[in-house]
């Protein structure tokens, strides 16, 4: 079971790498932010799996905190940062 969990964690980390590409590539600011949110959710899953693999229950608390706060960055982006212009994409 632990091996499987570790493998799934690794698989999710590779998923994160793909999301990282989207963050870097865009094309739009919103896509980057969406990818960052995917990052958050996947991160929560990786943390839960790590807690199991490493047998460290406090890591579940980290996942919990991350899940609790996951909304803040997205809302801050939508309500405070995202403007039609004012940034230049490379």
């Amino acid at each position, binding site marked *: 079971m632990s091996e499987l969990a570790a493998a*799934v964690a690794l698989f999710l980390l590779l998923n994160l790498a793909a*999301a990282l590409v989207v963050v870097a590539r865009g094309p*739009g600011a919103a896509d980057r932010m969406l990818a960052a949110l995917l990052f958050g959710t996947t991160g929560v*899953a990786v943390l839960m799996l790590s807690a199991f693999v490493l047998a460290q229950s406090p890591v579940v*608390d980290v996942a919990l905190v991350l899940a609790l706060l996951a909304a803040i960055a997205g809302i801050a982006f*939508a*309500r405070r940062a995202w*403007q039609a212009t004012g940034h230049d994409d490379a």
Partner: protein
Amino acid sequence: MLEFASTALMLLGAGFFFAGTVGLLRFPDVYSRLHALTKADNLGVGCIALALALQADGLASALKLLLIWPLALLASAAVSYAIAERAHALGTPLGDAGADDPP
């Protein structure tokens, strides 16, 4: 039996995450990418939380794991609402990748 259920759920969760990532990479506009993201990986988180809760050593830790799922759901609902509303307010059209950016 428990072992088997956990394994299946974990693999299913991984599959959902994979689908979400593919959607993020392939779907044409912000709105549909929102769908890909919020549906797929919340199912993914749910499956994995459930899989691990089945393996948990106590009720408390199982409940904690299961609490994570609704939290993730709530967060993604709030965020996708906020982003979709903002995208609409900024006049981001459907089906046109990256149209919110100036050329």
